[in-house]
């Protein structure tokens, strides 16, 4: 790849030194962003939430001074909630649930969106393209509580009715009574197993593409699905997995404890459109390049031109733009988590329930309702730091792959 800046030697561009300097610059810039961001959160809380001023001015144990807070943040200390519990502890408890849904739904959305984007744009039929745009937009712009209602009403409920009609036990308590394990361990273990499998699939696909192995990227996802199905069949837990996956029993309606699977599906639907649009834009940009014409002239099969030549050139801008959308996807997830009410069963009626703890959304909204400012600030700062770290990872990956970025010749 030619460098557009003549002052920079190719040796410097190719060396790890360039990348290190880039990384250093970005870390410093990220630190500045973090300081401005935390200051912004303080201003927001101070100016716009009137109930907090008394607590701050009283100078009690809940110290929210900016400098103190930044010093605490460096040590991982986010202060104490009004209830007296360390905020960092509350967040550490909630973060795995949010990260699980974010990662699992995000990976699935990426797989679906990139596949659809490539297929639809490459064929470039007007009807298919229009339909894909409409479907992606509808899910992207749909009010999340409405989306979840539709998923439950037209997806989960008919399945629940069908299960009753077939004479199968229609209550999770019955399904799990003789299983020898409870829902909590299944949801927890199964969820993380699914996430790890998806990560392996992603890495294998990327590796396969890079090394030029044709079969690996195409087969790894179906193989993983078949593998998981076989594992479930071997362990004889099919009925319980289905229960957790689709039905989650009638008491979910009763006590309002939602399934993380429902949240993952909703997040997948909200997020895949963004990935699809970005992929389509990238493919549209590249499809008329000279190298595509050359490949066609050499009778390279269309799918190979698309997946091995065009997709590689598109992947980098797609990565950048997908990461730019992360704050909005995280927002969608917070609303979805609220609506699905993961973990809320712990609050209700003392009923037996899945011990899948609530995510950041539960922590945030309960803090907002209780006017617990230290927890609100803690959740906002955690989300900011999370986004900052993800952005730094994306920028580093881009800079490692594209010398123009680390040399500052491409914005």
């Amino acid at each position, binding site marked *: 790849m030619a460098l557009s800046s003549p002052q920079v030697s190719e040796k410097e561009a190719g060396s790890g030194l360039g990348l290190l300097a880039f990384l250093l610059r970005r870390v410093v*810039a*990220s630190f*500045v*962003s*973090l300081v*401005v*961001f935390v*200051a*912004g*959160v303080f201003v*927001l*809380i101070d100016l*716009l*939430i009137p109930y907090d001023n008394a607590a701050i001015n009283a100078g009690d144990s809940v110290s929210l001074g900016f400098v103190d807070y930044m010093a605490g943040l460096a040590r991982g200390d986010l202060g104490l909630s009004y209830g007296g519990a360390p905020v960092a502890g509350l967040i550490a408890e909630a973060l795995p649930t949010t990260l699980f849904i974010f990662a699992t739904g995000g990976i699935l959305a990426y797989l679906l969106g990139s596949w659809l984007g490539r297929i639809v744009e490459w064929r470039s039929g007007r009807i298919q393209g229009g339909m894909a745009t409409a479907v992606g*937009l*509808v899910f992207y*712009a*749909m*009010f*999340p*509580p*409405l989306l979840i*209602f539709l998923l439950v*009403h037209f997806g989960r*409920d008919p399945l*629940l*009715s069908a299960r009753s009609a077939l004479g199968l036990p*229609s*209550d999770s*308590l019955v399904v799990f009574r003789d299983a020898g394990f409870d829902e909590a361990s299944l949801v927890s273990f199964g969820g993380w197993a699914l996430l790890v499998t998806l990560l392996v699939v992603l890495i294998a696909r990327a590796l396969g593409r890079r090394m030029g192995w044709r079969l690996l990227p195409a087969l790894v996802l179906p193989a993983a699905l078949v593998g998981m199905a076989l594992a479930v069949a071997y362990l004889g837990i099919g009925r319980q997995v289905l229960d957790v996956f689709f039905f989650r*029993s*009638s*008491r979910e*309606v*009763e006590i309002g404890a939602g399934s993380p699977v429902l949240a993952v599906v909703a997040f997948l639907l909200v997020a895949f459109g963004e990935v699809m*649009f970005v992929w*389509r*834009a990238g493919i*549209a*940009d590249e499809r008329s390049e000279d190298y595509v014409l050359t490949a066609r002239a050499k009778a390279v099969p269309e799918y190979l031109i698309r997946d091995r030549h065009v997709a590689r050139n598109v992947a980098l801008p797609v990565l950048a733009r997908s990461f*730019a959308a992360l*704050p*909005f996807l*995280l*927002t969608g997830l*917070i*609303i979805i988590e609220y609506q699905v009410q993961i973990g809320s069963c712990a609050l209700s009626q003392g009923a037996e329930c899945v011990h899948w703890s609530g995510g950041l959304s539960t922590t*945030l*909204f309960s803090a*907002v*309702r209780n006017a617990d400012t230290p927890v*609100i600030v803690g959740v*906002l700062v955690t*989300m*900011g730091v999370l*986004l*900052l770290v993800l952005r730094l990872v994306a920028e580093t990956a881009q800079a490692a792959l594209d010398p123009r970025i680390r040399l500052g010749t491409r*914005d």
Partner: protein
Amino acid sequence: MIALISGRTQSRGTGHQVLRHLKVRLGLAIFALMLIGAAAHPLLQATIWNGQESIYGPETGHDRDLEHPTGPSLAHPLGTDALGRDVLSTLTFSLAPALQATVLAALLVGLLSITVGSLAAYFRGWVDLAVTSIGDAFTLLPPTIALLVVGVGKPAFGMIDAGLLFGLLYGLGPAALVIRSRALSVIEKPFIDAARIAGAGSGRIIGTQMLPHLLPYAGIQMMGAAIGALTSVAFIQYLGATDQSRVGLGSMIYTAIDIQPVLPTGYGSFNMGDFHARIGWTSLLAAGLAMTLIAAAFYLIAVGSRDAVIPNARR
């Protein structure tokens, strides 16, 4: 690209091009429909529903003669919701705050992002450093989350406040960064040098040479802000629906799907039919459709404008 020294003539021609574009016209038509809907509420209250506040009031109206929710009828063309409120009345009442918040957010995002983004690209140096630092920081605070933190459970926080706050955070954050990036590529074009050589000042170069190239991209950012603000405002209404202080599209959806019957105890005895019978389908459809149409109007206007100005623009 042809040099655009005669910026004003070009802008006028571009304006006509934009208005002639099919998507823009369709978007404007949908938007006009929503405005008519919002304007219809006070008119209906003053005429057909005059003196019937107890039945057609959007917040506390209740038709005692019916068992709610009901489907469409002559008395209630869009039916009633589970609380007995007339859906046409709540819908027309809800459109105004939704439109206020979305339009305000979109306009503020357009104004801020173009001003800040073009100034950063033109002057570079510390101006650019300040804009990118603030933009980077604001990108870490999603505006919807900020709005929820500030607005939930506080009736004093109105929809205009919501639009302003959303527009401020989005306009100085992600939108400013995108427009700055576009402005940086525009400023490298030969016609900017040509304008400088011709003696044009900073204001003229930014206003007549850079602005026309930034507007289509600002339009896309404005669309994003409008859709985001719409969802945020609806969610605040959704969360505040129980105290009836915030009638809006969000609370219409809440009333339609979350007002549940008193549940029997015991796991197996719950009858799904009881729940389904209480869903206010007309309320759900009306609010869902209104939100989709408002989002679609902004999408069509933004994408149509961009396609009209830059015919070979990518999605």
